[in-house]
């Protein structure tokens, strides 16, 4: 029932999108939304509205809900308190009209036995009960299990530009792709006969049913990888990363100072990142008691590290303050003891030649900091 509603509302949307509401939506977008979501829907402080990643849902209903209720945790206000419904619907339609690529992706995993030796067809899949079925909010294929089953991916495909399209699929295992019920791709890495099918096909702007059936040998992770290419134009990568839990975590200045320990490329791993309420960030090395660098108008994007299970460093966003590097102590022995937060000030305490010394870092003005040693 639910998919039917989605299709209907999409069709209805498509009609609405043709109306003047799109213009109204664009006007509103250029006044308000662009501040966070970018002039071209490509994001900034807020996420992109053009890509595949829809943490809160990509259906017209879900998008309207977000516009209405906002996302308090991320700082998006509830626009139902600001705009009349017609305006919000116009905005929603505008965003839906930007949809390109996969939407409404459902990934199901099936047991292997029923498919052994048989050609992958939709009818065969319909006859077998899946082991799991997950709606992927990210609208790209990612795999959070080891390869212990066969994949079936169903989704809508939103096309905005007419042209000739073709799938490129990594030649692992067997893959069948159906577009609106017609097989447009079939490959079998093991087959001696040339069963490979990879037709180019014409697409007009619209919404299509896409179905991907894929089987490969059990490995540590699925190696399925696919791209939909418009000949001479845009590529849609079917694979991507899950954002599960990786809500972009930007550490911003608050009314209290913070000391942040994150891995930043180019800074020693023990660096203390002191983020002051005036958005000044001071990088202090506790190992030798020195100030390394500083920024103003700064924040820390923790997310690159989380997405790759800590294989990538986090990032500092900000404007570097020049000439801040300095060694604070000339000492034979120096050992870092602790840091404390005292409202807007950071206290960094070390044992310097047997005596406790405190480095105090406090905000100064709107773009700087003052540092003292006691």
């Amino acid at each position: 029932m639910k998919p039917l509603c989605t299709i209907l509302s999409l069709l209805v949307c498509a009609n609405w999108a043709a109306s003047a509401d799109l213009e109204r939506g664009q006007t509103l977008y250029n006044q308000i939304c662009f501040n966070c979501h970018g002039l071209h829907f490509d994001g900034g402080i807020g996420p992109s509205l053009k890509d595949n990643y829809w943490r809160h849902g990509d259906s017209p209903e879900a998008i309207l809900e977000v516009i209405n209720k906002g996302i308090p945790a991320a700082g998006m206000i509830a626009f139902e308190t600001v705009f009349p419904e017609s305006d919000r619907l116009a905005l929603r339609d505008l965003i839906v009209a930007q949809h390109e690529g996969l939407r409404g992706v459902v990934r199901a995993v099936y047991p292997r036995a029923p498919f052994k030796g048989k050609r992958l067809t939709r009818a065969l899949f319909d006859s077998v009960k899946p082991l799991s079925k997950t709606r992927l909010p990210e609208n790209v294929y990612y795999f959070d299990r080891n390869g212990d089953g066969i994949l079936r991916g169903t989704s809508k495909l939103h096309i905005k530009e007419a042209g000739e399209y073709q799938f490129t699929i990594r030649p692992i295992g067997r893959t069948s792709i159906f577009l609106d019920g017609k097989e447009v791709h079939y490959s079998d890495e093991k087959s001696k006969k040339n069963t490979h099918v990879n037709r180019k096909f014409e697409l007009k702007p619209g919404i299509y049913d896409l179905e991907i059936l894929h089987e490969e040998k059990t490995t540590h992770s699925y190696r399925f990888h696919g791209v939909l290419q418009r000949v001479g134009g845009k590529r849609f990568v079917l694979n991507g990363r899950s954002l599960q839990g990786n809500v972009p975590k930007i550490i911003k200045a608050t009314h209290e100072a913070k000391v942040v320990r994150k891995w930043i490329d180019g800074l020693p791993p023990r660096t203390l990142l002191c983020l002051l309420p005036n958005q000044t960030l001071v990088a202090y090395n506790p190992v030798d008691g020195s100030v390394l660098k500083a920024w103003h108008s700064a924040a820390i994007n923790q997310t690159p590290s989380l997405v790759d299970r800590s294989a990538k460093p986090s990032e500092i966003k900000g404007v570097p303050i020049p000439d801040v590097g300095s060694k604070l102590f000339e000492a034979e022995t120096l050992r870092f003891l602790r840091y404390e937060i005292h409202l807007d000030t950071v206290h960094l305490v070390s044992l310097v030649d047997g005596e406790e010394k405190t480095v105090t870092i406090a905000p100064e003005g709107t773009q700087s900091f003052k540092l003292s040693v006691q």
Partner: protein
Amino acid sequence: MKKLLSVLIAFCFVSTTTARVPAGYRLVDVPLPRGAVTVLGLCHKPDGTLAIVTWEGEVWEYQAKTWTRFAENLMEPNGIHYDVKENAYYVAQKPELTRLVDTNSDGICDRYECVTDAFGVSGRYHEYHFGPVADSLGRKYASLNLAARGDFTVPDGKPKGKGGGNMSYNAPWRGWVYRSDRPGHFQPLASGFRSPCGIGMSPQDELFITDNQGDWVADCCMYYIREGNFYGHPASLPGRPDFTKEKVSSLSAADFAKIRTLPAIWFPREVIANTPGSPVWDTTGGKFGPFQNQIFIGDQRQSNYFRNGVEKVDGDYQGWCVDFLRGTASGPVKMSFDPQGRLWSAQVGRGWFSVGGKRTALQYAEWDGKTIPFAIHSATLTKTGFEVTFTRPIGEKITPVVASWHYHYYSTYGSPRVDEKTLSISNHALSKDRKTVSFDVPLTAGKIYALQFPEQESDGGAKLDFDTLFYTANKLRPAREPRASRNVGWDLAGSGWSRNDKRRPIPVVVKPLPAKECIMPAPGKATVLDADQWTNPNWKINQQGVMSRGKGKNSTKTAYGNARIHLEFRFEPSDDPNWRGQLYGNSGVFLMSGYELQIVNSYENPTFADGTCGSIYGQHPPRVNASRKPGEWQSYDILMKAPQFAKDGSLVEPLRATIFHNGVLIHDDVWVYGEVGGPYKRHGKRPLMLQDHKGTEVSFRNLWIVPDIDYDKSLDSFRRHFAAPLTALADVKPKVNVPSDRDPITILSPNMVRDMDKDGDMIITVNEFVGYRAAQFDPKDKDKNQFLDVSEFPHPNAFRGGDKNKDGKLSREEHLNIFRGQFQNVDVNKDGKITAADKQKNRKTK
């Protein structure tokens, strides 16, 4: 019919992979705080408050079904421990072991203390820090992961194998387990670990570590930790004084096998575990069912809990494992029993694959208080076979299927089961209460035994959830177990040894510092301990001020507390074969008359480890053996802190000492467990005492003492007292030495930058870029025909478009041109080099 059959088959497949929770137990989900909260560790406070620690660097507390955030902005803490006495949390985060204190009791941490950061961190992937756990003295233990990539690996000429490459020792103490008993204290305990993500302390102060299958680690396993031992992965050996990187690289598996300690329990992969987490002991006194005192471990990949037990066979621990519960929502990594006897687990799946599937979860298992599930309870090795006990009387006795195998020890990732065979059993008997089955089977030391009871039912017809127990039989039962050592009133908590254990590895011999650097005159504040200062006239002092050991102990007239002490000693050389071992030059420095620093000749005169010259006798062997030969003058330089007692006589702080022998550090702020002959007994200042002992002659000179020093203030500079540097430790400089004014290149991944930017100047020239790629041609050209064909250079886009002459293969020049072209693309600002100025266009975070 066919359709129905396939549906049925599918359904059966589904049910075998769903949850299996033993009768009487249930698994309950606990909702986590909203937002990005990936649970990595948990602990309970005595009042039942739960504290979790997350990948995102936060500590949250859960009380009365409410979450509050306690601390934030840590760097990947992998574990949390609550110290009741101090009312503080301890977390092992990547850069340090941190103590979190809420000084004003407002529920939010305001003091983040560095307990120790003495280990190295290179910043490479996989350098995790796990723990801490604590012994009954309150001392903390944690483990350090090797890195996934780096300069020092030990491939030992073997192929990598499926699953991964060789892990690397990039910074000091990676792959080690350590103890830290107070801020600034760091004591490396044991080496040879790969990814020691499970750490647990038994109620008897025994430390256990789980490690993950990988290079040098045949299968997942659990080790019983003994100070000074080596547990198998050779990359961490350079941390030991008897190894350098060059020496390790020159040795092979056969050499390492001679010195390694085997796991106490192997966890057969895919069946029991793939990524075992931390062990916890059921000390609930029966609240969690009939498995009291057993060891519970959760597996991050299998999404299960399994049970374990260990027993001492010929003086060493070995034991068994059996599956217990399947179907957790995510991958358990840390567990904790709450005061109500429920077993909680912190679960994480994201990044690695967990059967449970969820990114993260927090669940507890609880027992209904009455139902005894029918299960294999435990097992023990007998002289001729096994005894296996069930939780309930069994029905008909089923003949068990017994198989055995062993593992290779080599650098390849994981080992298959070697020489796996089924064994026939005999003398199959059932106990009177019908709960214990015993049988004989041909036993071989060094094998893992799988004891399977297929279709075994209880006398009530209940079936086993899990019918196989695995026993690791490193050793077989000896005729007689070794005798326990005499207990003098203190235990070496967490060390894995008992007093005077003859099996404890003896300290490595190192060169002492030259004598002229060790002889030092008394400083101004010192009291020279000359003839007037001693009480025993039997210890004669000659005109040169040399004092000979005489009859009876010799104490100073004055009593001392905290002190800085220097003394020199000499052994009279002796050829007499009767005076060897503990009899060749024995005396001792009794700090405060009770705590012995051993004096004995340990130059080519082996003796047991904690009786070696420089040991805190019976407790701590010296870090190294820096002895000079008999006839030469040797020195001790001691900084000691007197023990502190409460009014009721209980110990508040132990005696601590930092000691050099001949200018080499042999004890670094060690915790003394008690007096040499008994436990701590409240006392104030006491004289310094020298011991009389049977054996050859010992003489002393240049003894002085500086009383009432401030130990804590003097410690850091005292550690650097002699020219030989301490091995703790600055950070390893990252391979790319970034000049402070040059920003890092972002358009390539940090790993690529490290590999390509040979001179470390954050500029990648065409030559560096293309040169790096050119070097890949030969290794790829497997058939050595100077061309790369499709199989040698596979790519979805044939040859990445590089096969310009369309001859179906890549010549060296064509290969290079691909990357010359790629360089043009990466050099966004077209200035002929790749620098920080070349920025990626706005791209989705990958």
